[in-house]
């Protein structure tokens, strides 16, 4: 292997390991804070009023049930309001919403189509409560989830936004299973970022905001189809604190097919890269705390790693495949099977890079387990799905990342839907 390539690989391995050690150490350091956060309780009479904003676009089939399920959330109903915004649907969403007409707990709004962030902005002037919770029409909730988020806001009045923990709803395809593992892993990373006050994104699927702060910073802005990320960035560069609530859990529907997943990730990567470029003055800027010094550089670095990992994985994958085919073609299946079995330590790879990458895999699995632990999920159920996660993400994720890097260079915006 060429020297420059070796130096590149070991440099990347070093910083990847650095990032992972950073997450683990920060977790160990702040476990007490997490425990205290879990013990906090707010009595019913002290809970503040909250408005749930539900933007809807062409959801006639599910919108009625979705909104019904929002009312199943465990929260005092005299302090709970829903605003449903029909963002210029072309189907019967508005007619479906009319089934709630006359219900005092819900406000129904209709506007021209303009994207999710415009629907949220349209609703914000109608919010009369000190807190607002932005969700997707298809988000479903653990009954206690909203209470958990509000508890953070009540105990830490300086917090402007609380990000909820989002997991994948009933995964059924291998792509959803892979996403499920990914979201569990991120549940851990996001919690640690929250503890360091360096949250990357308060997700559009489930996040709580202080109404007055969102109004003060000017609400949502059109931001490369990733308005939730941009608002989180903006709040933090304005000196507002964003927390992550690991005990407030909601579920979102992950894309079922590869094509849909690809589209979603293209949007995310493109949105992330563009928004981060817009806020590049915050990168490594100490005045923005962990958000500037760690979160932004680490997230950008992750993109570089994924791209290099891509070439490396495909290189090994193709090499292995070509060798296997050659062996089978020339010497038969039994020779190939024999080559996989090895009882002599001499033939085990003892390169430092192999040790380091094995360690990285172990840390990633540990992160997934810690994510399950913080989300109070059973530790070992469906752990086999990890295979899909490693397989699909190593070999596929770089495609959308590289495509979106190209798109950023050419400034070609991918569509939402």
């Amino acid at each position, binding site marked *: 292997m060429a020297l420059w390539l070796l130096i590149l690989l070991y440099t990347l391995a070093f910083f990847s390991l650095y990032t992972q050690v950073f997450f683990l*150490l920060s977790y160990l350091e702040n476990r007490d804070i997490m425990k205290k956060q879990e013990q906090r309780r707010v009595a019913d009479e002290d809970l503040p009023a909250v408005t749930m904003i539900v933007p809807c676009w062409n959801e006639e089939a599910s919108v009625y049930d979705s909104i019904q399920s929002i009312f199943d959330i465990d929260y005092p109903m005299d302090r709970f309001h829903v605003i449903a915004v029909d963002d210029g649907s072309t189907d019967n969403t508005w007619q479906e919403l009319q089934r709630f007409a006359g219900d005092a707990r819900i406000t129904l709004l209709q506007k021209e189509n303009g994207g999710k962030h415009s629907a949220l902005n349209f609703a914000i002037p109608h919010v009369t409560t000190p807190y607002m919770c932005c969700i997707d029409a298809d988000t479903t909730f653990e009954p206690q989830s909203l209470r958990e988020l509000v508890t953070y806001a009540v105990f830490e009045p300086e917090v402007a936004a609380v990000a909820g923990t989002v997991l994948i709803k009933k995964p059924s395809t291998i792509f959803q299973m892979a996403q499920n593992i990914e979201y569990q892993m991120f549940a851990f990373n996001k919690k640690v970022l929250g503890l360091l006050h360096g949250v990357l994104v308060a997700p559009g699927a489930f996040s709580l905001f202080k109404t007055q702060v969102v109004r003060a910073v000017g609400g949502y802005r059109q931001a490369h189809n990733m308005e939730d990320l941009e608002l989180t960035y903006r709040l933090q560069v304005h000196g507002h604190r964003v927390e992550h609530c690991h005990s407030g859990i909601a579920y979102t529907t992950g894309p079922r097919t590869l094509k849909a997943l690809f589209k979603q990730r293209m949007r995310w990567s493109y949105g992330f890269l563009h928004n981060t470029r817009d806020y590049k003055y915050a990168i490594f800027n100490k005045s923005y705390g962990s958000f500037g010094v760690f979160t932004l550089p680490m997230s950008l670095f992750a993109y570089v790693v994924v791209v290099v990992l891509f070439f490396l994985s495909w290189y090994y994958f193709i090499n292995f495949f070509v060798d296997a085919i050659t062996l089978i073609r020339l010497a038969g299946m039994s020779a190939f099977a024999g080559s996989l079995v090895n009882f002599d330590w001499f033939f085990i790879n003892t390169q430092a890079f192999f040790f380091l990458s094995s360690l990285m895999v172990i840390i990633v699995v540990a992160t997934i387990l810690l994510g399950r632990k913080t989300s109070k999920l059973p530790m070992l159920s469906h752990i086999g799905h990890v295979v899909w996660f490693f397989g699909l993400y190593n070999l596929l994720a770089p495609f959308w990342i590289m495509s979106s890097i190209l798109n950023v260079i050419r400034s070609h915006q991918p569509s939402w839907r």
Partner: protein
Amino acid sequence: MESSAQRYIAVFIITLTIFGLAFFASTVLGNKKIEQITNAQQDISLEILSTETRYALLGSSSCEYKIQNENFEFSLNQELNDLARRVKFLESELGGNNRTVQQLKKQYNLLQIKDYLLWRDIQAECGEQMVSILYFHEPNCRRCQNQTVILDELVKMYPEVRIYWFDRDLATPAVETLVAMFGIKKSPSIVIEGQVITDFMRVEDFENYFPEWLLEKYAPAPAPEEDSVSEEGSN
């Protein structure tokens, strides 16, 4: 800010330590592998020397003794074959440009040539039944890689066949002499029964050159084709 600066430094030190440990473990284990190969080469060189000495002492009458030592002769060949695999693996791990790897390969080449010459003499003198194959290859040659796969398989099927591997890239005087002796021009080239073959050789092509006794000795058990795959999987 104070505590977070400390955290960044602490994480850096931990990461550096892990890196150090990985390199340390890799070096220690790598040296162990080199040591293993060096020891094996010393053993083999001793065995060759001892056979040579015995052969020189006894002169032509040595042929009477060879029968008693068939097992010894066989195990020496096994050791050489095993050494070939190890040297090849170490080369893939440490890289062909590694000095230690090159030295090991040079030594290994010399051992092979000595072994080859010794057994060629014994064969001529005593009419010893044996089959040897000289294989000249080069790194980064696609056809060589395919030929290597076949030869690896051949060693497993016929452990008694003596296969000598010569990397022409090493260009040691001894290998150069051998190349000149047989008039090798291309890689891969195979010398079997005194013939130089530059065509791609499958297992069946080799078998055409093998004497009857060898084929009979290692004839595959007459098992049904489908079953043999799963059974041989543990080899």
